[in-house]
């Protein structure tokens, strides 16, 4: 079957790629686009390890067709830091040891950033429910939730 030509923006860069009609965005990212930061933990939208944003909306890239990226803006974990300047969430995750094996970390960070863009002052419950779609088997979530809330507090302080 003929490939589909897709013109899109990924992490701010105009990007073109070819994909099969049935190819997921996750497979396109990890294959031809060589952006392997998004991980496949399940392929069914249950684990959140493949989280990206599409026009600012949090999505599981395994549930999105690659062809749907046409004309839209995608951001991935690779676009989170600016050069060697880590996003405050990334820095806080390191300082507070909010990761162990690290396989869920890209998805958790993308999801957490998306939360803080919508809600700069989330309660613990709000953080927990927002991140309920991102499975982590190592940490028990404690340090993740604390890191997100502390980052939010820091960012509010910085914005004052």
């Amino acid at each position, binding site marked *: 079957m003929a490939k589909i030509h897709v013109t899109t923006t990924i992490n701010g860069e105009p990007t073109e790629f070819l994909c099969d009609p049935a190819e997921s965005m996750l497979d396109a990212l990890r294959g031809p686009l060589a952006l392997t930061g998004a991980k496949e933990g399940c392929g069914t939208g249950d684990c959140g390890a493949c989280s990206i944003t599409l026009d600012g909306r949090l999505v599981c890239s395994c549930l999105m067709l690659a062809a749907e990226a046409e004309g839209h803006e995608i951001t991935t974990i690779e676009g989170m830091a600016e050069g060697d300047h*880590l996003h405050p969430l990334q820095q806080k995750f390191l300082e507070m040891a909010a990761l162990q094996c*690290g396989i869920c970390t890209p998805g958790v960070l993308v999801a957490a950033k998306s939360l803080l863009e919508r809600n700069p002052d989330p309660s613990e419950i709000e953080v927990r429910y927002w991140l309920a779609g991102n499975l982590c*088997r190592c940490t028990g979530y404690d340090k993740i939730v604390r890191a997100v809330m502390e980052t939010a507090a820091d960012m509010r302080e910085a914005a004052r």
Partner: protein
Amino acid sequence: MNDQSNKWIGKRTIRPDGVDKVTGRAAYAADNSMPGMIWAKVLRSPHPHAVIRGIDTSKAEALPGVKAVATAKDFVDFPLDKPVPIGIQDMRWMSRNMLAREKALFHGHPIAAVAATSQDIAAEACKLIEVDYEVLPWAVEIDDALKPDAAKLFDFTEFDGKPSNIAGKLEHKKGDIDAGFAEADVIIERSFTTRPVHQGYIEPHACTVSVGADGSTTIWSSSQGQFMVRAMTSFLTGIPQSSIRAIPAEIGGGFGGKTICYLEPVAAVLSRKSGRPVKMVMSREEVMRATGPTSGSKMTVKIGAKKDGTLVAGQGVFYLQAGAFPGSPIRGAAGCSFTPYTIPNVLSTGYDVVSNRSKVAAYRAPGAPIGAYGVECVLDEVAQAIGMDPLELRLKNIARDGTKAVHGPVFQSIGFAQTIEAAIKSEHYKSKLTGKFQGRGVANGWWFNAGGESSAQVNITEDGNVVVTTGHPDIGGSRASIANITAELLGVDYNRVSVLIGDTATIGYSNLTGGSRVLFASAMVVTESAEKVIEQLKQRAAKLWGIDASAVVWENGEARPSGQHTGNFPTLTLAEIAAKATETGGPIGAGSQQNTTGAEGGFATHICDVEVDVELGTVTVLRYTCIEDVGKAIHPSYVEGQMQGGIAQGIGWALNEEYVFDKQGRVDNPSFLDYRMPVCSDLPMLETIMVEVPNPKHPQGVRGVGEAPLVPGPAAVCNAVSNALGIRFHDLPLSPMRVLAAIDANMKQAAE
């Protein structure tokens, strides 16, 4: 140990691999590709039990794009009756688990594998393979497998002289069990079941393997031991170990489930046949159907106590599912459960039961949470029966230095009592429950911990920095702890130390990342290497000063002349000595290889508060504290992380996780949607109390910490639910359905 002056040990440093992991740069098993790479897929058995009369791969081989097909014929044959143990596995079972030989033993059992130019073609070709099966009766559950007329998986396993699905028995005995119960004022005997639960790592198994025309083999995969991958690939394919370079990718969780191979030898055979690098990635469904889990179990536990709370007798009979091949963790169930207590009369027996489900793999203190579930639930009832606080009962009977454990060894320096005392004194335990259907449960857990083989190399770079290489995949932050220790010993800044995990060609043999052994063992070899490096640095400084090396001391990262030479020369930093290495004798670096010993067991106490919604049957964990004897916390954040991760897995095991089989013997919930692990909104903050009783047999006092914090979990949660409702539960998980059924039955009983 120079605790007071520690600069890096005990500090919450930023892990060396951290930035790569928060930016998506870290390369896990599935993130690798090689030039010319092709893809392989596995054909799996549609039957839980069937003789394989023949496999015709001709149609698959003829499909355009197919480059190679593999079946068991392509593997080294290990006859069923001759054990070939390699580490914790037996090659007879490993070989047949990777590709079925005589029989398919579970639904999802790999039958054949195809490598092709695309994943789609490989999957299509799998469908073209014709397998002639003779379908056999099957048994999935323990009780079914133990029925006299049950289908037997193997001809050679016998029990009591008869063909049986019991493949092994283990017994620990101490004192006189009958005399012990005769002394007891209170005897509680209960039977329990637990369901199999999966390790649940988020990263599915994956590998890329390239075999050259000369047999030189490169394996890129994530596992809990690149040397295990090398050994199994070598044994099963016949490629010598010296020709295999197994490169450890970053590992996306393992919890024991990656101490075993499923793919690498298959990919090696396909690569050898096709002349192309071969990549294999399991789907989540394949992970759930054909890897792990840990055993389901049934057990009966009987404990006798005096009125004053003195335990006088303990008996346990534990049946554990092995899955399709012998080897369930009966050692953990029968060997760990009574171990924390000074019970004079103990009889603990484990049975290894094979049945038509996937072969179990290690899961965090394998078997120990199962045994502890029965014992700690019965102890709760004993405490209730004699009217004693459940932690005080445990403290009264706790093993102390000098206690002889039921499985043999005498404890030397343990912090069990300190751990329970810390639990009793904790703010959590002193707090009061406030709601109607709230309950509190406690439990203890013990795990052996392990030493074993490890290697390290510490090199000083020309610019005066430090590179440490060890041989254990870093599964939860061990590189940070190794960097802390190296910085401490050499007296240099933490940021000048890099820690790498070597591949099998670049670092000496190192046993599995398992048994909570990694930091214990790597710290020992890193310490010896660093001490050798310090000797070299002193010698180099002595040479530069023209004095005897014995007159040089190493302090705060500098060489300083001492004795009669004190003050005669300006101190030399590591960087200054490194800069002159060529003229003073060449490169500076040293390695160490040891079979480490002295790992003391791990011990944890849990306190769990729950609330039950009696309309819905749902259980909410309100508060949870893990108290653990951690030896010495080299990096406290990652020690806490182990404790919190253990809590979460225990809660999942207790409340939600289980394998469900359909009537055809197939796993009915092979996805993260239906196999319900705890998500963020299921849990509260998880409290930790680190009790530091240093291990005297270790240079930094390290005791393994990774596994013990899972062990008490299922029992602590179950005791909490039982106490909330006043109904004793004996079967896990405490899913809403089961909780509601128990509430209904209780109401009916009360009404009658």
